[in-house]
């Protein structure tokens, strides 16, 4: 098959999967976006159905796919294995190429640029600006970033600066830490906790110099830029695992690890890049790794009680690893911790989707189910594996939201 967008074997495999669609509508019942807005008619319509009319080098026939948030729930729930979200991501790229990319999409998809500009010593000033309503209104007019969109505060120090001063003691059991931009510029304390937990379990943590994974670019349809960025990251990480079959890469930002593991290879047609392939095979979501260590009897379980009631939301991108919800299995090891498992699908933010002025209201509507469950649960805090989802949750509910490993960190007494 070589019609349509497909240009590589992986593209053909993705596109070929639409032939397995039996129009059962399970994806439509699960899609968080089409359930709240008529602007997106649903994954089946925009995907397997419209894809038949998309022909290479001809104009896009279907424009609603720009309103797909790329959460991936359709692909996860399809009983026939149709790669709906991946096909739609490629269609979005084609559409954007044709329509042109707004300046906004070129800026907010570059967390590394933003972090360097606003983080560190600039943080107090940058944070004042972000909180300053007139500036946000101007930003909305000029850049089409919604004035109320959740904006995290820049941290005063970077994670990598902290790590330089706190190098891991050598144990011979190396692990590579992919900390992502959120940890580097906004939540360096999360990275510090990751390092301490890994060290507590006997690992020597290695932190290569690293930049963005390219996911924001990819989800906004800027594929050429996304490829450059993710391959640069793969080249930075691969020397640490190439010669040592036992060394793994682990990350706490679940959407960024998913980008490295699967999405870049599938959606960006980089299936056969040897560096990315090796990095993809060796990369683990943090909770996934800790659960496997526990299964092998290699996770320390010297947990002190954490007498709290928390709410857990597994983000869409975490579910896209196809590993279930390992955070819940880890929580079960902590004495005293009471956990309410949410069953809402999505918080709405989908990375940068919910920041965009034309999508902000949709994102808030998508998240309404989750926000209601959180408010009704009586839980004090919300655990969630993705930083942009945490910011959205806190923005909408006022509840403090942290990565699941925060509770392991507390239970270890580190």
């Amino acid at each position, binding site marked *: 098959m070589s019609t349509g967008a497909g240009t590589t074997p992986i593209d053909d495999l993705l596109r070929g999967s639409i032939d397995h669609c039996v129009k059962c509508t399970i994806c439509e*019942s699960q899609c968080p976006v089409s359930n709240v807005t008529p602007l997106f008619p649903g994954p089946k319509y925009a995907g397997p159905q419209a894809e038949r009319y998309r022909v290479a080098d001809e104009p896009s026939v279907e424009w609603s796919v720009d309103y797909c948030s790329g959460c991936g729930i359709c692909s996860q729930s399809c009983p026939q294995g149709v790669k709906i979200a991946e096909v739609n991501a490629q269609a979005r790229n084609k559409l954007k190429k044709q329509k042109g990319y707004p300046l906004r999409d070129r800026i907010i998809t570059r967390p590394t640029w933003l972090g360097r500009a606003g983080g560190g010593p600039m943080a107090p000033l940058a944070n004042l600006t972000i909180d300053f309503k007139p500036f946000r209104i101007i930003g909305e007019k000029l850049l089409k970033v919604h004035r109320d969109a959740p904006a995290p505060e820049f941290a005063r120090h970077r994670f990598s600066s902290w790590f330089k001063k706190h190098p891991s003691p050598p144990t011979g059991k190396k692990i590579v830490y992919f900390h992502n931009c959120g940890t580097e510029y906004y939540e360096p304390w999360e990275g510090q906790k990751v390092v301490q937990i890994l060290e507590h379990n006997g690992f020597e943590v290695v932190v290569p110099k690293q930049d963005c994974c390219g996911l924001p670019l990819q989800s906004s349809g800027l594929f050429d830029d996304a490829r450059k960025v993710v391959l640069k990251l793969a080249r930075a990480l691969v020397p640490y695992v190439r010669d040592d079959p036992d060394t793994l890469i682990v990350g706490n930002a679940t959407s960024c690890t998913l980008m490295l593991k699967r999405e870049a290879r599938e959606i960006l047609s980089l299936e056969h890049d040897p560096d990315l392939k090796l990095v993809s095979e060796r990369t683990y979501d943090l909770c996934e790794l800790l659960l496997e260590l526990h299964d092998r009897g290699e996770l320390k379980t010297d947990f002190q009680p954490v007498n709290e009631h928390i709410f857990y939301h597994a983000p869409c991108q975490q579910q896209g690893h196809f*590993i279930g919800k390992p955070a819940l299995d880890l929580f079960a090891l902590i004495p005293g911790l009471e956990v309410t498992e949410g069953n809402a699908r999505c918080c709405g933010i989908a990375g940068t989707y919910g920041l965009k002025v034309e999508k902000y209201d949709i994102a808030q509507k998508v998240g309404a189910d989750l926000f209601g469950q959180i408010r009704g649960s009586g839980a004090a805090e919300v655990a969630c594996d993705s930083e942009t989802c945490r910011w959205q949750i806190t923005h909408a509910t006022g509840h403090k939201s942290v990565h699941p490993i925060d509770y392991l960190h507390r239970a270890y007494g580190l």
Partner: protein
Amino acid sequence: MRSELHYDAVVIGAGTAGLVAGARLAEGGARVCVLAKGIGSTHLAPATIDVLGYAPDRVVSPSGVLPEFIAAHPGHPYAALGVDAIAEAARWLQSRVESGPLAGYRYLGDLDRNYLLPTAVGALRPSAIVPETMAAGDSADLERACVVGTRMLRDFHPALCASNLSRLGVPARSVEADIELERADQNALGLARHFDDPGWRAAFAGRLALKLQADERVGLPAVLGVRDPHGAWSDLEHRLGRQVFEIPTLPPSVPGMRLYEILRAALRAAGGRLVLGAEVISSERDGSRLSSVATHSAGHETRYAAPWFVLASGGFNSGAIELDSHWVTHERVLGLSLRGLPAEGEPRFLGDYLAEQPMSQVGVAVDGELRAEGAENVLVAGAALPGAVPWREGCGEGIALASGSHAAQLVLARSGAPAGAAA
């Protein structure tokens, strides 16, 4: 590093059979993981438990007919399960519905008598265990019905349903309800969310009441709430002052979503895991035993090892059993042997679409305990079993429920997992 997790039992498939097996294993104290390629049969089916509808005449009392049916069909899954086990599984399900996350929602009925419920096209379908929201559609005492539809739900045609019911001797007429919805809500799930909202529901009932005649029961498409179906249904009965029943719709099935949520909650409450998007891509054997299965965890494979496996992956419909373009039939998940294949040279299909098709009874070859032939620690459940023609016999959900239960109980008995122990 080889990525591997160990469980007492691994269940493959998250339709009714897989979720029932997983929940009952977890309740029995086993550490269980349910792996599924995607969401299964629940979201496509009406969510009634049809135990035996035709044998071949319409069955009035499943428990009365089953002994004779089993004697005449020794290769049928029911022959291995037995009437008592089917009844026990049905009672288990009813208790889990009652204690589940949907407050007040119940499943009514037993094996002694089939309900005869209207379908969306106005045919009558025998079913033993049914959501309370459907029970008043039973044609045994349905004297006059008003089938209510809305042009916002384009796959449900109340006039067609009502005219066919009338032809079958159930006097029925149809009305269109005045509902205005945004395009995003114009499906069964979107409507169900509105019915969950007491204010919306009250306004709907107020408008509908004006169109009803005395002594009519009201039949509505099965969209009466997805989070609070008991509240929605009983509130409508109260406001309309008459009995109200749901009629199953084309997929997606709202009652099926409720059943999925109830079974998922039972699995989770007992400590079982559920992994969606986890298609089994390979398996490892140790002689006649299956030792592990593998799934893609995005970049790498994860192996799931266990002393017991339950294969609840479905049959031809789910793609777990396939007839390929070379006319070879496979069980695609574990490569197990099949039973019921037409002999070489015999026809596989007959010209009459609704005839008893030779391929229809194909399933995984099993022994008398429903263990897969050649894989002694693999229990088979649901539509993967051979020897039944669910769409003719009206027994698919009964097989799924009872064989999922059976698989769990056999594993628990053989592995000596401590009953009631925390998972």
